[in-house]
């Protein structure tokens, strides 16, 4: 059973979008629970989930499929997206703007009312079964200007906004995920909260829920708290020496 702690209306939104076969865009900073949420929803809707982590050299062929050489002959191998369409699964493209531009072009006919996936190399055109659902995620704070999600793409999706949870809820999540006590979770969340105040002023992003869970996990396994924080919250966030110093000072201030 996947654990997910709902924050707002996201579950209802997702369910309704899915029942109307509308594609979904999850928007929010990294490590705030988007992936976890999709896993949770897949389980709840009882559909298979296929996740693709997009990076800069991911091309359309990587997700739709390609011919490969096998035992002297060429055979077609479905990519994850094609597989999801055939199976009627949820396909989750994480950080979609990171991928090459042709990936987004493939998504267009899939994400409007045609709901088709043209496979040009095969000369085939797949029509999506009702259970297929396209979900993409996007981190608006992180991307540079060149890597913005185009309006034409954005406007095909139902958007669900994610933010870091409120402190008490975030502490609850950290405690549960790392199996630590409430006090430690509270301190770490306070720390994370403070780092987020530097967003776009020295830090591109503050510490995510994920990093806080890492810090808690390392501490629970016996590492000193400050070492754990240094390794997760300080060094993971930046390479800028002044800001590193500020983060170390912050840990010192918050923990005593």
């Amino acid at each position: 059973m996947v654990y997910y702690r709902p924050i707002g209306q996201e579950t209802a939104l997702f369910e309704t979008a899915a029942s109307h076969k509308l594609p979904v865009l999850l928007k929010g900073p990294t490590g705030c629970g988007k992936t976890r949420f999709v896993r949770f929803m897949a389980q709840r809707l009882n559909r298979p989930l296929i996740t693709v982590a997009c990076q800069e050299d991911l091309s359309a062929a990587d997700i739709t499929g390609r011919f490969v050489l096998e035992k002297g002959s060429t055979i077609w191998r479905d990519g994850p997206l094609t597989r999801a369409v055939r199976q009627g699964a949820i396909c989750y493209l994480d950080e979609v703007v990171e991928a090459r531009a042709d990936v987004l072009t493939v998504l267009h006919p899939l994400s409007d009312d045609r709901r088709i996936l043209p496979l040009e190399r095969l000369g085939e055109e797949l029509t999506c079964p009702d259970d297929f659902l396209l979900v993409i995620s996007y981190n608006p704070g992180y991307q540079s200007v060149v890597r913005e999600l185009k309006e034409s793409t954005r406007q095909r999706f139902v958007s669900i906004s994610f933010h870091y949870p409120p402190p008490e809820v975030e502490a609850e999540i950290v405690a549960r995920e790392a199996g630590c006590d409430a006090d430690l979770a509270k301190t770490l969340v306070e720390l994370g909260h403070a780092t987020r105040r530097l967003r776009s002023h020295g830090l591109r992003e503050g510490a995510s829920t994920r990093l806080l869970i890492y810090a808690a996990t390392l501490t629970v396994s016996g590492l000193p708290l400050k070492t754990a924080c240094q390794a997760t919250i300080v060094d993971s966030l930046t390479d800028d020496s002044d800001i590193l110093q500020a983060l170390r000072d912050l840990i010192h201030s918050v923990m005593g």
Partner: protein
Amino acid sequence: MPAPTWPPDPKEAFKLTAREYGVDPADLGMDPDDDQQAEQAILAAFLFKNPGRQLTTGEKVGLGLDETRRSMAAWLAMVTGRRFPIAPSDPAATDGNVIFLPQALPPPLEHTDSLLFRAMALLQAGFLQHGVLNSQAVLRSIYDDWVLRSCFHLLAARYVVGRWSAAYPGIARDFRATAILDKAAIMRVNLTVVPTQGMPAAFKPLYKGLLAGENWREAGPEAAAAQRAVAAVDAITRQQAAIPVILGQARRLREAYRRMHLGPPPAPYFTGILRPEWMLALRAHDQAAEDAWKQGPTPLRQLRAAVATQGHSGGLSRKGPRGGLGLRQFIKKKVRRTLQGPGEPGELARSPAYGELRDQYRSRQHSPSPGSWTPEASWQELVDIPPAAGHEDGVPYDEWDPSSGTYRLAACRVLDRPAQAGPADSYHRLVQANRGPITQVRRAFQALRQEERWLHGRPEGSDIDIDRVIASFCDVHSGMEPDRNIYMSFQREREQVAILVMVDLSGSTVGRVIHLEQEALVILAEGLRTLGFPHAFYGFHNHGPRACQMERIKGFDEQYGEPVFKRMGNLQPGGATRLGAFIRHGAHLLSQQPQSRRIMLVLSDGRPEDRDGYRGRQGIEDSAMAVHEAQRLGVHIHCTSLDPSTGAPEYLGRIFGRGRFLVLPDVDPLPRKLPQVLRGLIR
């Protein structure tokens, strides 16, 4: 010379201080036997002489601010949740927005130096964050009385240290660690270092918990007042209680010290100094507060409540003022009776409680010293704003970098030099061509000079200023110290206003715009000549950060004549618009003028823009910061912009503030409009 000991009484203190500053007490013409006069004399000696005993002169000795500034700003933002610009000045202080820290800590360099910097920054941030300096009334009362200010400062510092320590265990430890540092415990009265040895017992309990070492646990009868004050501050649990308790205790303490003939308790180095005058000088702040009083529903509610309770105890019905009297009339009557008694107007000013206050106003207003104690003077002395004279390669100015939240030191240079002269007939032709408008402007400006008006918020006057009374009423009711400047007086001749008109000469103005700017300037100049207020005209444009040119068309001290005409008739456009630098220099020029009202009118046609990335957010935020600095120098800025783009109101609002700019998308009416704008500003 024997080791200095704590002066036992103010007479001694006065003599000692006077000697230190090389002043003969007799020259000051004050009687050192009168403790109040002695106190003022010391104050005068401290403030009007060059501070010869500053701990740092800006040269690097201990850890320098620049090395830690960026990381400290980031840390401070994370801890306080608010972004404070950090700028150099010694002692540490704040103006309500920027946090000032010494350029360098006293020698020697120690590994605890960064701890000390952090403690200083946090304390100043805390004065703002924990709300102890956010009341106008508090600022005014501590501005007026330096002993009260010192008492308030120490109690407030104590309160802030307590707040931060409660919020963050690590910070609690840091403050405990700071307490044992030698540098933290350097004691100063304003800028002068004083010995800890021999300090009166009456002061000692104030430092308990703030500083280690020494025996601060004084138990004698003299120490009782300070002990009580400290205990009261330590017992504060709610932020709303902070101001009334701290100010109330500071007042008691001040009275106790007066009875004991003691001056101000010195402040430890790390607590910096309070600069109410800087905060008061922030006009924007002033304005906002005033508007809130007048418009916001809260003050009205408070007022009603005040009237209800006052009315009740004063025998009026709970429902409010009786007999159909309007609220204003009711208050007017009530205040006349309670504050003033049935006597003649102005009696309040003569009552003993207010006498002291008034005397201090007097001594400040009538001070013959050229460097009298004004916010600007202290600013000039203490902050590294560069001097104006003798800079062949330009005056360096810092620039604000919004992405790092810090100042870039000496990032640009402004060259102040006469504009190029051309043929004189250009000016005279423009005068000929604009006879009609010039006559109109002259008439309007002349009327301006004689305009009679009521001056509001005066310490004395012929009538009660009802708006101020209402505000004070609310202050009293919410437990704050009321503002006592509640009189109005009538004035026939307007006070002089210093005016600086600055014209954009960047490349984009070529053609019609420069032509109209020139015409507008000529009309304005003819009008200002009749008005007779001190004024100057400058043009500005630049070629990169090192060559920001302020072209002097007419200087403040210059008379009208052929040289001025030749320059004004021949404006030469070209280059970029590094607006922040020009505003800073303009503000600097204005701050040299003796008038207390100073107006800068900026005429521009587009966004701040230069090469090297001075555009977009950088240009706008730096210019906005420059405007903010200028306001701190008491300069009121208005911008008339000819930028037709739709984004103009937005960035202009960000830079100059709401209601401080005018956009003329159509340039033609400029020559007519500009004098109107200026007229509106002077009124």
